[in-house]
């Protein structure tokens, strides 16, 4: 076995130990692996160790037995896997398609967000022949999602950190806040009125939930929403440029750092703007970071706030080190889908690849999902046609890297997953933690939920 492959497999297997075991020994064993020269024997010892730890009652996971079975299946796959994988460095995980359902009819999914307070609660925003609608879902049982309530909305749509407020867009085109403390009875609290600034393309709550950033064509507004019933405008930032031709939004086009001191926004170019929002009333742009070619989107801060990740249109993930936020330094770049795959998927209506990024809660890994839609259907004709759309298959590609050391990032996994959509493109979103992907079709309202290990 090649040393690189053995090293990668070793790290994957180290992540397969039971959680309680990893909490106690995970870090130090990774440290040993860093110094060790992994061989086939290393892989075998880790596979056997992980299996026996799973069988050990002291480390048995308290979670549902299904999760344990999956993990056991993963370990077994990792033992059998090397025989197959000698022929390629492409390591695929198993996939479990969990759910696929219709969120409405006529029109499509324009935005989605998970509640950070309860990651079984999903909000989908849809556009239709009338106006936008938001729907709250309980996806605890992905195969049988429960529709909780619908209310006036549309893209963008985000949950406040406490899960009790949703910021969406009102029919007037202005951002609106909804009280969803009772998920079955959403109630509108306020509309955030500003001068006409064109279409709203992004919203983000600060981690404390006190500040809401709303992004327009050329401006970003910072609101004090400590009292959601009485939002106060704190600051208007002149944003460089809005994203071009984006019919769909990803949750990370605008993002707060975990400490709430920084705001990152896409510029519509191959750049990321960083704003110092520690004092929101006096927020200023502190850096404009160039990235790979094509506009950077799907921004995500690492849980410690030391890294900022974004994906370019061309599928390159850029990791920026924020040791000095005023001078972000490129720490690493990683490729997701290839230029050829993207070129083959672009449809004439202007749909292109869609991306989403999510760091693991400990910041050890970064997961990216790229959605490539089939080129056959024109997005606009798909939206305007009333006739039922023929089914198409979009492909989601998921990638995971070990980013514990940003200077030596290693890819842990890559896999692809077919998603049936009825036309247009589709929008991927990773649930907090990066282990569940939800894909919404821009036409036909279909939402597919699938799990990554």
């Amino acid at each position, binding site marked *: 076995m090649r040393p690189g492959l053995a090293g990668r497999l070793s790290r994957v297997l180290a992540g397969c130990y039971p959680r309680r075991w990893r909490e106690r*020994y995970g870090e130090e064993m990774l*440290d040993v692996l860093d110094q060790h020269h992994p061989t086939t024997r*290393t892989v075998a010892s880790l596979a056997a*160790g992980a299996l026996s730890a799973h069988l050990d009652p002291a480390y048995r996971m308290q979670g549902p037995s299904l999760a344990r079975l999956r993990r056991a299946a993963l370990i077994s796959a990792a033992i059998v896997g090397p025989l197959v994988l000698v022929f390629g460095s492409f390591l695929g995980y198993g996939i479990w398609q969990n759910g696929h359902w219709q969120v409405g009819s006529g029109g499509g999914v324009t935005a989605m967000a998970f509640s950070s307070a309860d990651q079984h609660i999903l909000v989908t925003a849809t556009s239709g022949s009338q106006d936008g609608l938001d729907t709250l879902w309980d996806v605890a049982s992905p195969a049988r999602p429960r529709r909780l309530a619908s209310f006036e909305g549309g893209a963008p749509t985000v949950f406040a950190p406490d899960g009790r407020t949703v910021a969406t867009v009102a029919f007037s085109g202005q951002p609106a806040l909804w009280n969803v403390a009772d998920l079955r009875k959403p109630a509108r609290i306020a509309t955030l009125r500003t001068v006409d600034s064109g279409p709203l393309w992004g919203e983000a709550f600060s981690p404390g939930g006190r500040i809401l950033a709303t992004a327009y064509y050329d401006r970003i507004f910072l609101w004090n929403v400590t009292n959601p019933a009485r939002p106060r405008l704190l600051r208007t930032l002149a944003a460089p440029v809005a994203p071009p031709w984006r019919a769909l939004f990803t949750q990370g086009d605008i993002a707060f750092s975990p400490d709430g001191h920084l705001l990152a926004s896409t510029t519509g170019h191959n750049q990321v703007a960083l704003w110092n929002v520690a004092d929101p009333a006096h927020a200023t742009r502190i850096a404009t970071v160039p990235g790979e070619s094509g506009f950077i989107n799907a921004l995500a801060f690492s849980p410690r706030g030391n890294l900022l990740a974004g994906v370019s249109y061309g599928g390159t993930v850029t990791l920026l080190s924020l040791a000095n936020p005023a001078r972000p330094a490129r720490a690493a770049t990683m490729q997701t889908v290839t230029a050829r795959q993207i070129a083959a998927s672009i449809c004439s209506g202007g749909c292109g690849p869609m991306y989403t990024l999510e760091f693991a809660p400990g910041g050890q890994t970064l997961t990216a999902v790229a959605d490539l839609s089939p080129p056959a259907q024109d997005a606009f004709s798909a939206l305007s046609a009333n006739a039922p759309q023929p089914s198409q298959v979009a492909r989601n590609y998921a990638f995971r890297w070990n980013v514990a050391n940003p200077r030596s990032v290693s890819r842990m996994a890559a896999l692809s997953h077919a998603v049936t959509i009825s036309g247009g493109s589709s929008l991927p979103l990773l649930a907090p933690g990066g282990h569940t992907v939800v894909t919404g079709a821009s036409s036909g309202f279909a939402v597919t939920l699938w799990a990554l290990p």
Partner: protein
Amino acid sequence: MHGKFDDLGRFADPSLLILTSLAGGPKHGYAIMTDVAAFSAIRLEPGTLYGALSRLERRGWVRPLAAAGRRRPYEITAAGQEILAGQVTTMQQIVRVARLRTATAWGTR
């Protein structure tokens, strides 16, 4: 007492090597691996090392010390030293018998 040690199953041999290594002073994971390789020419793999270490710790034969960064040193406990001494006695007995019998078989005595 030896029964207790044998409960370690496939981790019995690595455990003996680890206890022997720690008998010379506290060491972290990678230091144990290099030390064992130096005195026995046996290369412990990380999965085996931590499989054995976790069992030794649970039995109270080794004790983790404060971690320095990601590295956590382990030291042998009094109970661990007792177990090790017991195992060494058994092994000495085995060695003595083996020496005698192989010498007889080879006719050098």
